């Protein structure tokens, strides 16, 4: 991130060479600086570890899962976890109502939740940042129109809007992801526009403009990299929101459809056994909670490390 260069440079006495003032070994690279701040937050480190573990589980699900996610063992319906009476080490976390192994389904479920997070963030951040850049650079009626449209989208409670969009598109995981992506997009538009408007009057933008940088170059090469900090923080937050909302849609029967081992859909299947088989209800929700919690912890650390306004002095 090159965001602080303008201010550090102006604090140097005129004519002094940068290396005479600050030897390179005293000036940490932007990544090192970021990492230093990030590591100060212990929660963020824990979150990062858990999140990386989830990614690994998602990647190596085929190797890790003891059974197939969809195979039904008819001889072991609603078998409790291994440590309870009636459980066996064959199914460590027990089986569901049609005899599928809970542990394997949870492991494969990590793939879906990771996939949902990535796709939703790509959809919402991709379009949101583009529209926000456009609004910030164009100003005038284009800006007003875009911002009013975003106000309209924000007036609907997010889950409600996603629900209605899925009703139009038809219930499936892909449509749920598209709907959630659209619902989360206005936040990126607002953030990007605000950041662009903050950067535009700065000297480095003017100088780039004077040198004759094209508008596209100004947008994407000059200004955008300096607006990234809040966008990255938002990306982390919407990753977790995406997982929660997709699970909620799955739970309502409007997201991933059975027998997909998506955690929210698993909970929907488990609802009727809530008082009979605690394990089919507890584990999928716990997986969602741990995953979302890890990402939120990481998001807090990212915000501390990237957001200059909140940076400790």
């Amino acid at each position, binding site marked *: 991130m090159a965001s602080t260069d303008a201010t550090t440079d102006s604090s140097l006495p005129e004519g002094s060479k940068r290396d005479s003032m600050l030897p390179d070994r005293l000036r940490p690279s932007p990544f090192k600086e970021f990492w230093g701040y990030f590591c100060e937050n212990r929660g963020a480190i824990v979150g990062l570890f858990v999140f990386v573990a989830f990614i690994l589980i998602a990647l190596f699900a085929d190797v890790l899962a003891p059974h197939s996610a969809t195979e039904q063992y008819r001889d072991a319906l609603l078998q409790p976890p291994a440590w309870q009476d009636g459980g066996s080490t064959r199914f460590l976390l027990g089986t569901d109502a049609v005899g599928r192994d809970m542990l394997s389904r949870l492991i494969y479920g990590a793939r879906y939740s990771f996939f949902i997070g990535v796709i939703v963030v790509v959809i919402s951040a991709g379009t949101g940042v583009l529209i926000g850049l456009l609004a910030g650079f164009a100003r005038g009626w284009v800006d007003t129109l875009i911002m009013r*449209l975003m106000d309209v989208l924000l007036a609907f409670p997010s889950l*409600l809007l996603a629900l*209605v969009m899925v009703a*139009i598109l*038809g219930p499936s995981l892909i449509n749920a992801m598209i709907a959630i992506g659209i619902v989360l997009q206005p936040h990126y538009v607002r953030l990007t526009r605000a950041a662009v408007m903050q950067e535009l009057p700065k000297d480095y933008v003017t100088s780039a403009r004077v040198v004759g940088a094209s508008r596209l170059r100004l947008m994407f090469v000059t200004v955008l990299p300096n607006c990234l900090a809040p966008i990255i923080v938002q990306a982390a937050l919407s990753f977790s929101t995406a997982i*929660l909302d997709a699970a909620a849609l799955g739970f309502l029967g*409007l997201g991933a459809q059975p027998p997909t081992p998506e955690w*929210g859909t698993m909970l929907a299947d488990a609802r009727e056994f809530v*008082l009979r088989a605690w394990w089919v209800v507890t584990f999928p929700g716990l997986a969602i909670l741990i995953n979302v919690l890890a990402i939120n912890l990481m998001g807090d650390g990212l915000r501390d490390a990237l957001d200059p306004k909140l940076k400790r002095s």
Partner: protein
Amino acid sequence: MLSFILRRLGTFIPTFIGVSIVSFLFIRLLPGDPILLMAGERGMSAERHAQLMVQFGFDQPLITQYWDYLTGILRGDLGISFKTKRPVWDEFFALFPATLELSLCAIVFAVVLGIPAGIIAAVKRGKWPDQVLMSTALVGYSMPIFWWALLLIILFSGMLGWTPVSGRISLMFFFPSGTGFMLIDSLRSGQAGAFASAVEHLILPTIVLGTIPLAVIARQTRSAMLEVLSEDYVRTAKAKGLGPLRVNGLHALRNALIPVITVIGLSVGTLMAGAILTETIFSWPGVGKWMVEGIGSRDYTAVQGGLLMIALIVMVVNLVVDVLYGLINPKIRR
């Protein structure tokens, strides 16, 4: 102040029009035409189809249809429910008190626990109460509330048998609904045990719906308090020798509460989204459950009306919060 209110209204009206366009387009974007949707799987003859298209005005140009829809809204006409054949407006307002009662209880629950938690965390910054409270708040903030509801049901209804699983009041009690608020109606009915039953039914849904606002309010109170505690006037108050209760409670809290109040106002949207899940799980007969059922049973006029009304309610509350904020804090008016 007046110009501030007018300017705020100036953004309200275009947003309202935008929201009405979105809900208007909802039915028209569905695959198939509205009359076929209404007929459902039974189907209908071509003449009957044409006749109904004319009757409901679907043969008109889109802009005329929208104009009729918009003027209808202003008259309180949201169309007729496909399923019950009753006016959507009446259906919505028959169910809305249940959602409102639950939401109010949830927000009271969140405020009563969240503000003290935030204050304690701020005053004990960095010490164990802060860490415990803020970790708990983060867990609450990350909670999939539909799962949280199931867990509470397992514990309190299944294992302990303390609370009922669904509905607003035990079926043993019957009395005409006066205000639509079960707590008030059950008290007024004078039947022994009715009020207690209504309270029992409210506890779990209130906790579930209030959890995320509770976490948000606790976090917001903490950061607002921390900001205020570092201000000069707080230091002055301390230097004058005022006790911690007076400094924290009176001097700091009063100013810290301003952003907290905004957060409370802005959580209406969160509450409405949460009500969809909470009401579905606890069979709470409010508008959230009604919307989910509407989607399930393809009662699209009901979904359309609910979509519009919920967005309108969120917008009006946000407007009121903004104006109140302008009243309290003159800086924002400019």
